[in-house]
């Protein structure tokens, strides 16, 4: 029984990985250039932004929540940080404030959901609209550029560390830290518990509201970090940045095998899910699939992947 259960869940855990390998094999067959070191670095760098958000989304989804506002959070924090930098505030300080803002925007979501008892979907749908609106108000609908040439800031998106792009390094470090938190700390355990059975968690003395506020804050923080990388890479902050990022992040989490009902999943899967999406985006460009068809292929692959890895929701 025991063994069996573990085997089965092992298989389920490995399924996304097999999917990733399969996609890589197909793409490489069609364009061997895919496997070049420079392209792999390229893919990883492109993946890093979605992966960071998806890591945070994993925590949120593990508690049984969801966050649609994360793309808007990214846009707003990016714009405000860029605005501060453009107006001459010390870049490091501006970036720290940006991260803080991200955490605060996330905490607002968490607060509405935990204390206001609003369904996460609708709460973050509303804040998505609000944060997007605020971004437009703040930027007046225009990109913010002229961000100075702070080395730290430039490195964040464009630098290399031992030949590895800094965004990739950031992603790997974040992954390590978050993996550790989820696996080894009481906080991580509580995240699973709240998603697994909120009633039972509360009755075990866990402050479920606080856990929820924390996970949304964490996601906001990671979205802000992603926005810094994006702003650095583009050398400007876009008011429309991050549109649909929430959907890519959720797709990554689900592709990785985390259940949307909460309580079950792992962050390694999310990394693989993000890689699947990234490899797909890159690969379809590389193979030269016409853009109209790219969407069809992307949707079909996601569908296929979840169908193969289907979870009994009951």
């Amino acid at each position, binding site marked *: 029984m025991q063994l069996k259960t573990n085997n089965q869940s092992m298989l389920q855990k490995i399924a996304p990985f097999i999917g990733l390998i399969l996609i890589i094999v197909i793409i490489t067959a069609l364009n061997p250039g895919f496997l070049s070191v420079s392209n792999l670095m390229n893919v990883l760098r492109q993946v890093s932004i979605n992966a960071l958000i998806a890591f945070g989304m994993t925590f949120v989804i593990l508690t049984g929540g969801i966050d649609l506002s994360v793309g808007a959070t990214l846009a707003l924090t990016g714009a405000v940080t860029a605005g501060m930098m453009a107006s001459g505030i010390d870049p490091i300080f501006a970036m720290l404030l940006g991260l803080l803002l991200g955490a605060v925007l996330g905490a607002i979501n968490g607060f509405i959901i935990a204390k206001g008892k609003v369904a996460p979907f609708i709460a973050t749908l509303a804040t998505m609209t609000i944060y997007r609106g605020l971004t437009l108000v703040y930027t007046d609908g225009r990109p913010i550029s002229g961000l100075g040439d702070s080395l730290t800031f430039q490195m964040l998106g464009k630098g290399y560390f031992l030949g590895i792009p800094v965004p990739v390094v950031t992603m790997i470090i974040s992954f390590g830290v978050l993996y550790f938190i989820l696996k080894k700390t009481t906080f991580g355990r509580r995240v699973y518990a709240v998603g697994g059975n909120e*009633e039972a968690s509360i009755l075990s003395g866990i402050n479920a509201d606080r856990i929820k506020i924390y996970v949304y804050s964490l996601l906001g923080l990671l979205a802000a970090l992603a926005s810094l990388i994006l702003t650095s890479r583009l050398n400007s902050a876009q008011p429309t940045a991050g549109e649909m990022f929430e959907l890519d992040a959720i797709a990554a989490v689900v592709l990785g095998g985390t259940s949307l009902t909460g309580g079950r999943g792992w962050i390694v899967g999310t990394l693989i899910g993000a890689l699947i999406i990234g490899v797909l985006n890159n690969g379809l460009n590389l193979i030269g699939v016409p853009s109209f068809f790219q969407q069809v292929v992307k949707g079909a692959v996601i569908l296929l992947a979840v169908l193969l890895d289907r979870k009994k929701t009951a």
Partner: protein
Amino acid sequence: MINMTDISKSFSGNKVLKNVHFTLEKGEIHALMGENGAGKSTLMKIMSGIYTRDSGTVEVKGEQVNFTSPKQAEEAGIAVIHQELNILPHLSIADNLFLGREETIGRTGILKTKQMEKKTRQILGDLGLDINPSDPASTLSVGKQQIVEIAKALSVDAEVIIMDEPTAALTDREIDSLFKTIRELQKRGVSFIYISHRMEEIFSLCDRITILRDGEFVGERKISETSFDEIVQMMVGRELGERFPERNSEIGEVKLSVKGLKRKDCFEDISFELRRGEVLSIAGLMGAGRTEVAQSLFGYKKLDGGTIEFDGKQVKIDTPRKAKEMGIGYVTEDRKSEGLVVDFSVEENVSMTNFAAISKNGLISKDKERKLYDTMVKRLGIRTSGPDQAAKSLSGGNQQKVVIAKWLGIEPKLLILDEPTRGVDVGAKKEIYSIINELAERGVAILMISSELPEVIGMADRVLVMHEGKITADLPKQEMTQERIMHFATGGGKLAVEDQ
């Protein structure tokens, strides 16, 4: 009537039923007994087409059948009352009763609502339930919801009715009227399969009994030719001895003293004292407000008035967290939805209340966690295949022990147990009683809510009886009898007649 032979069934490699036989004759009430996880529900689900068997044959009225859906079983005259409540709380009572076989105008699919409501009133009226059929089912107490489920099975004109622990949530009075109905139907030739962990019921209601142990058929007896002890022996495979073990605890100083507790629309004027080493029981009918009192004491529900003194100091308990920090534990009445994270492993469940003990600076120590698990498994005799076994795959009795284990880890000074043996088999029941005794002997104050009067009388030093949110009696051990408790539980005045 029904003949099941050589039935086997595995769930992902785990053999749950091994060549089980079962025969049901027309017009009999046939008990099915066995420890938690023996395979009773599984066998019944195979009969009613919810699970498919791996091997073996099922014959109904001499004809071999292979049901693949509950609908088919129903069409063959087999109705089931499942162990889990299957009430849809937001639909009306009438809708629940007719769910899946609504009465419509011809084949249009348009509902005859009025007609169904009229029938509902009548059917439930026959079972002694006077309700408004158009009210949402959520307005009924759990016991009354159970009666709706029973009515649902009765109203399809079934020839065989399977009842999987139908009385786990019923009051004595409701049980009486259920039994009356069963006997009436029996006279009309309906056969019953009756699953229960309550010995008294089996002996007063049933004609024959089949016993399962670990998925195997152990034997079949006529009730008139067997005894309480023999059945327990067959179920657990050994002598069990005295049902309620001895306790030698010293009742010490007052641990908890509450005065005038009140919660709007739930209870009021709740005052009592609980001492170290004492087992105080709260008895009462379903919905009397006992769980609400417990949850309010534990900080899970808000109080609207009253004071709580703990160790002589006045305290305010507004979150379960605070209660836990004070040394109060609460074993919930519904282990699946409030006690456990069913997807978590046993070890993780035990850890949930004990993070302080197994972690440092927020980091969980795997060693300490494992040590806690080992200690608890040994102390409570929890039967698991290992620390990683998912809680949902444990039998009911072992699940209940895990919930208790969660709280023993914090070394509680006051432990609230809400229906600690609901749906638990006799063997596990006795083990839980022993745990309660051991705790009391160590000086833990125990508040035990229970609807099973034998258990209350067997275990409690003192009993509070509640009726509609008020305490109607506070009886010491020597004054406890089933009749007296029932008298107060049903709202009898203070001047109780001596036992009739």
